């Protein structure tokens, strides 16, 4: 049983590591700081938070989106939950930055670094692959737009 579980994890990891190949929305978890009192979030709210049109969670708490610098999880997250390619997403934020309307969300090279930051920062919200151990953060459920 343990062996098959390890193989499944390995296969999932490989699928996610191969850029854009095989990874699905189900392979991505949304994580928030443990002090955040939300347990679920809609796709629309996620999109609004990560595109900068929304700065608060539904409960009024501050939402601080953080990003991975690249990779399959980043691509899958943007594709499924924001509706952008990585290039479109970068362009969207560059426009906000260069017109004085916003600051680029903080970026991390690895999921471990992102998890560490989310764990330590009130209001932080990020995304990681399901193979990562998210004990230090809270995993929130994604629901359809109402």
């Amino acid at each position, binding site marked *: 049983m343990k062996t098959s579980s390890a193989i499944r994890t390995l296969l999932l990891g490989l699928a996610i590591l191969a850029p854009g190949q095989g990874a699905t929305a189900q392979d991505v978890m949304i994580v928030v700081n443990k002090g955040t009192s939300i347990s679920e979030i809609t796709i629309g709210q996620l999109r609004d938070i990560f595109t900068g049109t929304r700065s608060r969670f539904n409960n009024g708490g501050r939402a601080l989106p953080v990003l991975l610098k690249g990779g399959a999880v980043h691509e899958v997250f943007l594709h499924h939950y924001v509706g952008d390619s990585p290039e479109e997403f970068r362009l969207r934020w560059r426009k906000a930055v260069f017109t004085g*309307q916003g600051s680029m969300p903080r970026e991390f090279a690895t999921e471990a670094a992102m998890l560490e930051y989310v764990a330590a920062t009130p209001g932080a919200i990020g995304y990681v692959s399901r193979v990562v151990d998210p004990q230090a953060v809270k995993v929130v459920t994604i629901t359809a737009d109402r």
Partner: protein
Amino acid sequence: MTRLRILLFLLCLCSIGLRAQDLDNLQIHGFATQGFLYSSQNNYLTMKSSSGSAQWTEGAISLNDAVTDKLRVGIQLHMYQMGQVGGPGIIVDWASGDYKVNDQLGFREGKVKVPLGLFNDSQVVDPLFLWILLPQCNYPADNRDFDLAVLGGEVYGGLPLGPHGGRLLYRGYLGENWLDANGGYVQQLAGYGLTFPSPPSGRAFGGDVRWATPWKGLTLGSSAQSQSLDGTGPQGTVHMPPALLVAYYAEWKKGRWYLAGEYWRSPFEPVLTIATTVIPVVVDQRSWYPMVSYQLMHKLQIGTYYSHYVNKAADTSLPANYSKDWVVSGRYDFNQYFYGKLEGHFLHGTGLGYSAATNLNGLNSNSNMLAARVGFTF
């Protein structure tokens, strides 16, 4: 040489690291571009384009710091030289404190960008666009300085319109702006014999409302601006009573496709007084464009637009009172930092983009033009 030094300075800042530096909450971003124009007839945008000209350099550096959850401060320094406009000096493109009360209400104070149509507030930022030149009917590159920003304040926010209504985004501003001492308008006035110890300035206010519709990717909007202008020099004065510009626009983005269009109307009546001679100038600008682009490959985007400008207050059969420009364009992103662009223009009419000073032998009514631009951004 000064231009070169500024570029080197910008590139030195870039070389701190290819990635934008993030020192706690401080962010630094920037871009630098070099352009080239070659036209079959006439000299375009004050460059000697009929001989081929690379006298088009532009760059900016932006610093941003989130002081608190709600307060952000930032500044963007911009330099450009395009033929005889612009110059080696660095301009503060915007510099503001931004206090966001909540998602529905925020305030910016300082030198703030002016929202006018789809691209006015971002038109100097070349890395954002497929196009080398945005539709010149609404975004004339040689006369853009006046409308870019105001020294004053802005209120902004977004209002959700229910689960199926989309979102309404609004911005309103009030302030003062002035002509760029090295810009196209000042040179045009100099052509009338008017010079100014300090550039003419005026009061501007206006707003922009855009509806991010529930139909994914479709945005509809409208902007309006009231603008006046006054300047006094040793030879005379320029006075423009408040003039109202109105713009309507739509954009639709679906998958690899992007479609957009705008219609602007801008009647204004400046009066030039030179010694005892009073010269009233009557202009009723109508301008519109449709554009479409397609992401052909991961790194390659292509597109086309048609730009149409006409001065309805004058004889519209004369080339000097209209400008019609068919454009095809392509952009290749070598990576997320470096890109190159190539663009063809098929110009009819001489109402936009030509200055008398660089076309001393007169103008042909039609011209073709090839433009190229390379850029770096981080």
